[in-house]
């Protein structure tokens, strides 16, 4: 607006050049005409788009058996995508997994040892060898059969990005066209080999990627991992590693134009908003695949809910977050179903264990009593079919895992830390705090104030922390909530520049030791020794800690060691009990929310398994669920 004035000045200085006068009328007319055209064009596009979108939704609504489109919403928006799985797998389309590329086998959650066969039709263990047999009828979408070469090439390329499977094996060989044999390293339980192979390795076609797998590359990978088993530091400096880096650089430069998969669906196209998949008739089990098209929507969270509520999407799974109000609206819909499958991840409140006053166990325990965890969870996530619930005992394990590995006596003997301001007050007093004028004063005479830090991207947890801040304020501690943008937040946690923060989202593995290793006290977040944050204090718990049952150990190294050596069994149960007691007593971090996978589906156009079907809880990935559900005849169009 201020340039109205400036324009006046400008006009002041502008004289009317004589030659322009004649054409003025024409020019004004042209301006007017242009305006009219613009409006007409806008109107035309308007009506055109209305018509075509109506057409689209009709097609969806009247979908017959032969032409059904499943619209699946996911809360993982992609900013861009690539068809190269070895770049950063974050850019690799999520819709590809399970739909376009078959997994070898799917873990039956929460079991650590049983799997549903997919591309691997069967497998067997002979001593320290694991033989995996590929589905005999499996073909690639370019017509070639899936062979052992495909899997072996994939394994070697995975070696370039340090896939976990290579920490478990010494080598891999083909046994005929359709079988491979993996040889485990000494002392590695075979279950771990199965876990790492089936959970993390997806087979890609050698016709596309085989050209990168040279004999030299294989040699380098073998040499590197052989040396890394005993001398990781030296291996990282070895010529083999340098050669592997060079190979990876070359590999990531390759950008295929499309995906050549072996799964039941072909990728038709993909944008920043959606991916479209269509049934591939060459799939070995194509007879069971009854859904002919899948639209996979990637969105920010609120849009997923919108798509479900408006009937645009039929199904959503995986990191769905339905706020309580949306849950109640969704469940009023006659076709709508909502499941809350427990045990995906946990949310933790982390204390800066190295910084006063949180370096005092008593203060941390007082905080555990002062955080109204039940109320935080109920207000943010609701009570019915919630995305997160309060754990029974804050011991670093979600209830489901806890019950598998601890006895009920053990669980009951742990402290549940109910919301109890009286206990919190007496703990604070015993730590030298006192209350004056309704406010808590620290032993050094300064008022006790807290800044709760929260990742700005974790929108649902912000509500929970708002509730916490309000409760702490009324308890007499001046508390402010501050959210920090995602990457800066992580950097803050690593640097140890926080007081009390939130930590998410790990601790959902059915393997309790992995849960502890990934927790805030694990090596990634606590006295980190390797990686990008090497040398940073992070949580600052330890480094030497008296762990019940284990004595004085270096927490991070001990946990790193155990996850590689201990498979499901009695020893795992003993260790779980030790770590659970540590977390519960020392309170390095406070587990406050057990997340559940909210699965929403509508029976308007599709048949789904019954709400109590084990399929929902055993298959944790939405795409896998749609494929396995069809194979078992439990999911089909109406």
């Amino acid at each position, binding site marked *: 607006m201020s340039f109205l004035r400036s324009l006046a000045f400008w006009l002041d200085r502008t004289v009317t050049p004589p030659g322009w006068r004649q054409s003025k009328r024409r*020019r004004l007319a042209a301006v007017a005409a242009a305006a009219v055209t613009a409006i007409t064009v806008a109107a035309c596009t308007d009506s055109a788009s209305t018509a075509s979108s109506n057409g689209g939704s009709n097609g969806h609504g009247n979908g017959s058996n032969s032409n059904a489109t499943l619209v699946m919403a996911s809360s993982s928006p992609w900013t861009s995508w690539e068809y190269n799985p070895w770049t950063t797998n974050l850019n690799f389309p999520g819709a590809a997994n399970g739909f376009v590329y078959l997994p070898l086998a799917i873990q039956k959650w929460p079991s650590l040892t049983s799997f549903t066969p997919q591309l691997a039709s069967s497998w067997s263990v002979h001593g320290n060898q694991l033989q995996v047999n590929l589905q005999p009828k499996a073909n690639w979408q370019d017509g070639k059969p899936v062979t052992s070469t495909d899997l072996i090439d994939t394994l070697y390329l995975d070696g370039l990005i340090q896939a976990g499977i290579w920490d478990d094996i010494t080598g891999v060989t083909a046994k005929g066209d359709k079988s491979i044999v993996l040889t485990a390293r000494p002392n590695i339980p075979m279950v771990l080999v199965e876990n790492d192979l089936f959970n993390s390795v997806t087979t890609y076609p050698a016709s596309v990627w085989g050209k990168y797998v040279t004999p030299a590359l294989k040699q380098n990978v073998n040499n590197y991992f052989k040396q890394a088993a005993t001398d990781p530091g030296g291996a990282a400096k070895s010529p083999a590693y340098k050669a592997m*880096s060079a190979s*990876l*650089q070359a590999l990531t*430069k390759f950008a295929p134009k499309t995906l050549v998969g072996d799964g039941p669906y072909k990728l038709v196209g993909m*944008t*920043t908003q959606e991916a479209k998949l269509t049934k591939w008739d060459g799939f070995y089990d194509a007879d069971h695949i009854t859904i002919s098209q899948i639209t996979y929507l990637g969105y920010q969270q609120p849009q997923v809910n919108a798509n479900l509520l408006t009937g645009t999407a039929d199904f959503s799974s995986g990191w769905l977050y339905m706020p309580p109000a949306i849950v109640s609206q969704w469940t009023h819909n006659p076709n709508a179903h909502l499941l809350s499958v427990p045990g995906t991840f946990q949310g933790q409140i982390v204390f800066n264990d190295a910084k006063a006053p949180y370096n005092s166990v008593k203060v941390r325990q007082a905080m555990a009593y002062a955080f109204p965890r039940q109320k935080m969870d109920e207000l943010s996530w609701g009570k019915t079919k919630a995305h997160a619930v309060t754990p029974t005992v804050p011991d670093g394990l979600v209830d489901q895992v806890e019950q598998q590995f601890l006895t009920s006596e053990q669980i009951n003997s742990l402290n549940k830390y109910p919301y109890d301001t009286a206990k919190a007050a007496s703990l604070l007093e015993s730590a030298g705090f006192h209350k004056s004028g309704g406010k808590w004063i620290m032993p050094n005479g300064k008022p006790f104030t807290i800044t709760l830090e929260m990742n700005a991207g974790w929108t649902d947890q912000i509500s929970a922390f708002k509730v916490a801040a309000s409760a702490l304020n009324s308890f007499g501690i001046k508390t402010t909530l501050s959210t920090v943008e995602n*990457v800066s937040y992580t950097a803050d946690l690593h640097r140890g520049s926080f007081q009390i923060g939130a930590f998410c989202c790990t601790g959902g593995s059915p393997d309790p030791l992995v849960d502890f290793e990934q927790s805030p006290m694990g090596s990634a977040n606590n006295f980190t020794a390797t990686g990008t944050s090497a040398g940073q204090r992070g949580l600052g718990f330890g480094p030497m800690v008296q762990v019940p049952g284990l004595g004085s150990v270096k927490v991070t190294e001990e946990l790193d060691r155990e996850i590689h050596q201990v498979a499901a069994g009695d020893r795992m149960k003993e260790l779980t009990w030790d770590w659970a007691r540590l977390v519960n007593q020392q309170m390095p971090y406070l587990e406050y929310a057990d997340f559940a996978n909210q699965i929403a589906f509508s029976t308007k156009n599709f048949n789904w398994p019954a709400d109590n079907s084990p399929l929902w809880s055993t298959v944790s990935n939405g795409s896998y669920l749609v494929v396995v559900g069809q194979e078992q005849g439990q999911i089909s169009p109406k």
Partner: protein
Amino acid sequence: MISYVGKRVATAVFIIFVVVSLSFFMVRLMPGNVMEFLENQLARQGDLTTQQIQQQVNAIYGVLPSAPVWRQYLEYIGHICQGNFGTSISHPGQSVAHIIANALPWTIFSVGVSLIVSFVVGIAVGTVMAAAQASRFTKFITLVVSFLSAVPNYLIAILLIYFLTDTHRLFPQGGAYEAGVPIGWNLPFLSSVVRHSVLPIASYAIVGFGGWALQMKGSAISTLGAEYVRVAEARGLGRRRIMQSYVGRNSLLPQVTLLALSLGFMFGGSVFIEQFFNYPGIGYYLISAVNSRDYSLMMGCFVLITVSVVFSNLIVDLLYPLIDPRIARPSVGRKGRPSAPREIEEQPAPVGGTMA
């Protein structure tokens, strides 16, 4: 004349150089890096142990820049001079130039069309308002137009998303085109593009045209008050004749200049709207680069936006002498001291207030 042009071009190059340097150092000072971002994301996937995550990240980013900052800077400047913006960090293997080249058309298309639409509609409405200042219609429209020009465009976007994509599914929720449509000059693709662009364009235009209309009205009224118009009135020329010949022409000119200037700002202004509509333009990639700490992509977007602003300013500067010869030959000018012609417009972009 030549010295005028030379001066302008030299200034433009200088500004680009300074901005490139500034953004290089600013971006390098940001805490956090792409590796931390990737570690986060991998941890969220759940299957990997901490060590595996770190090993993977190291393998992928083993060659993250480790040279001293000044050497990185010199290399960067050198590369930019050759048109090489480096490789995107979050998309290994893809060059920044490639990503930007893919994003650019979408921003140019959506913002360009909205700019033209809001300009044309705004000028038309503004002229009508100035011509019939006293009418009730004008008062009402003035009210509406000032109201719209004060509404932030992202709030309009939120409302459009709600009413036109969710409640009534008239338009797609986001993206630039439908997945699976063959990309090229064919009708299904083009209509899909148009359909997807309607809401983003509307979000810009609904708030944008008001600004143009008000400026046009203001400028036309100012002209009405000018002496030569008074003289024309005194000469007894008809009202219609005066509006068209004297007022229209003179008040339209500065608007055209402003249009050229706001073209340069189109990339910067697209940040919010492209974010809300998942529209894969420059603003969208800039935010995604900031979120993932993809330095090279971030700087590529910055440099591009800067260059576009400088370039359109330069064009305006070079065209000015054609319109007003006094500028290139200061001795003819009134005040003796040459001053940049743009000094009179301190507010080139009407959309989004002073901060955009």
